């Protein structure tokens, strides 16, 4: 056991980080408001290997594992990169063109028992839509759906569409595939939520160290220090559990995959929300403005919380599992 990020992984993560810093700055994101998608960016992400990361090299992919993908998605989360990232990544190998970015793939998780209204992110940019049921995966052409755009989505970088009826699609995977996709999707999204957890704390630190009131940096007031200390603990715990879930998917002998995934998603959802909430409060009035990007993180958190199972649903699953183990 050596649970540290290894050198290759650190290099991979650093590569994505510097790409995002140059290519997806806050200024560039502002221009994507209301669209949330840019085809050149998508192609560049594909070129970086974001979508084909876990596809075998023989199939044109990078041949890495889920633990590696988590590190990549952590960076995508930090940089608020918009688009149906997880779905397209999951579709690599299953849908032609997903890995190389020529097919933009979105999805709808119908396995969680939520009824209408069905909300689909980035619908207008999709080439293929996956329907994830408890026992199968289907693909449909987006044009087969009667989707109504929602003019004011919560996350200005994640356009959504409302659909009231779901057509039948082509079955492209069975129950096992569906379960694997749910697990992997939950872990990738947990990576993004981890990134939000980290970046919002970093923003709070920077702001409170610089902002002075009563002739002192406000970050020197113990009440604020302790809020940030709690944010830090949350961040460290979340990083550990999310990395562990990725590593467990790669090596199921290292633990119980279902439990590892649920623990990660439940924790990451809570942490991203709490840290971004704390960031709003710690930024004071500025945190309530559109100008300071804290709100983007808060809103993205809601989008990611509500895909591949909410924190509550994963908590329920964990309790169910523990109850069975004790029985």
């Amino acid at each position, binding site marked *: 056991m050596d649970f540290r990020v290894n050198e290759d992984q650190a290099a991979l993560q650093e590569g994505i980080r510097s790409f995002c810093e140059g290519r997806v700055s806050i200024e560039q994101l502002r221009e994507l408001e209301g669209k949330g998608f840019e085809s050149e960016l998508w192609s560049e992400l594909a070129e970086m290997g974001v979508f084909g990361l876990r596809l075998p090299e023989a199939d044109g992919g990078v041949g890495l594992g889920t633990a590696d993908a988590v590190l990549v998605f952590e960076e995508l989360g930090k940089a608020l990169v918009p688009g149906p990232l997880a779905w397209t990544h999951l579709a690599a190998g299953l849908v032609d063109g997903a890995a190389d970015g020529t097919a933009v793939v979105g999805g709808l998780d119908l396995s969680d028992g939520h009824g209408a209204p069905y909300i689909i992110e980035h619908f207008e940019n999709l080439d293929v839509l996956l329907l994830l049921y408890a026992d199968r995966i289907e693909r449909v052409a987006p044009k087969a759906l009667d989707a109504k755009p929602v003019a*004011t989505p919560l996350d200005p970088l994640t356009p959504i569409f409302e659909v009231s009826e779901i057509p039948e699609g082509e079955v492209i995977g069975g129950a096992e595939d569906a379960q694997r996709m749910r697990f992997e999707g939950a872990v990738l999204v947990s990576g993004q939520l981890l990134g939000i957890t980290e970046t919002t704390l970093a923003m709070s630190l920077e702001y409170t160290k610089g902002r002075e009131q*009563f002739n002192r940096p406000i970050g020197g007031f113990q009440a604020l220090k302790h809020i940030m200390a709690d944010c830090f603990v949350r961040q460290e715990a979340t990083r550990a559990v999310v990395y562990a879930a990725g590593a467990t998917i790669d090596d199921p002998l290292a633990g119980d995959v279902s439990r590892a995934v649920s623990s990660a998603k439940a924790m990451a959802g809570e942490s991203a929300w709490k840290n971004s909430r704390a960031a709003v*409060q710690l930024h004071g009035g500025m945190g309530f403005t559109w100008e300071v990007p804290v709100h983007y993180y808060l809103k993205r958190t809601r989008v990611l919380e509500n895909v591949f199972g909410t924190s509550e649903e994963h908590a329920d699953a964990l309790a169910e599992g523990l109850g069975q183990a004790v029985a």
Partner: protein
Amino acid sequence: MDLRYSEADEKFRAELGAWLKEAVPAHGKAPSIHDWPGRRAYDTGWQRKLFDAGYAGVNWPKEYGGRDATLTEQLVYYEEIARAHAPYVGVNFVGMLHGGPTVITEGTEQQKAKHIPRILRGEEVWCQGFSEPVAGSDLAALQTRAVRDGDVYRVTGHKIWTSFAQVSDYCELLVRTNPDASKHKGISWLIMPMDLPGIDIRPLPTIIGDSDFSEVFLEDVPVPVENLVGEENDGWRVTNVTLRFERGTAFASEMYQLQESLRDVVEIAKRVTRHGVVVWEDRALRREVGHLQSELDSLWAMMKLSVSETAQTGMPGLGASAIKLYYTELYQRVCELALGVLGRAGLAREDVGGLPTQDALRRMLNSLSLTIAGGTSQVQRNIISERILGLPREPR
């Protein structure tokens, strides 16, 4: 320890309720949040109707055209206003709740005569020029300078968080008139006409996407000296009169609204199903709703106790900080609960699938400002611990 409203209170309630039942629907639908002339007309129009019916300024003295209602009548008033979903005080907020009361308490006869009747009738809209980029929680650190020049103060500075600046006629403005005095001693309180030269208003969009707040840049603005309220350099004391008004019974309507929001959560939970089960059947949700109900009832009882005490002392006490702190944090918990119930429908800021997501999301986003504006929760906890509990002050 008498909790029941008096017969007079109930009579007042019945009359007001009957009037609201007709007046509210007749006033029509609120305009878009981006339609500023429309918003001013809507809000001031409602204020005028209140005035004509004798319900404007329920807490204002009769001699200034108010109703001089007892505190319990005020409570009844706020309850009924909320219950009827009457228009919010809106652009009249600063005039009715800050500026007006301050002028009544501290202004000259001339100032009162000029502004009070017009504020009350919805003819004059006020905004607030208190905070500055460098002076938020530490309001007394404000740097906007006012230099006496004959009959005017020449004012230069940069204000922020000024609500409704776009449609205001006057601004209650804090300025530094003595830069050499200690920071609380050199401040003055001015009434600044918004049509003076040198005023530049730049809207500051919020996370809701509205522009209710603005930054206001002041460049050599000539504010007449006669617009000074209170003594020169005594503005900090005058300000605190205003701040204490803000922490009084003004939350009553919002508290009642909060109870309605909790009901909304239940209503939504009864309409949403997951895994084939109505969400309201989720006992974890119900447990939290139950605890919140208990806390909302506690808050409301606290309010009644405070009102009963204020009725004697005439001024809300420091306990108002406790009410503000508790109310705002509860409000956020109720809003968060709604988010969880809405699930993916809560990704839309307009109604989807027949669910009232627009209101729920707007309320949630707005709730984030409650623990910041008017003194952050951290500032309230400082006030409570130092001024009420007598714990040592922060080292400065």
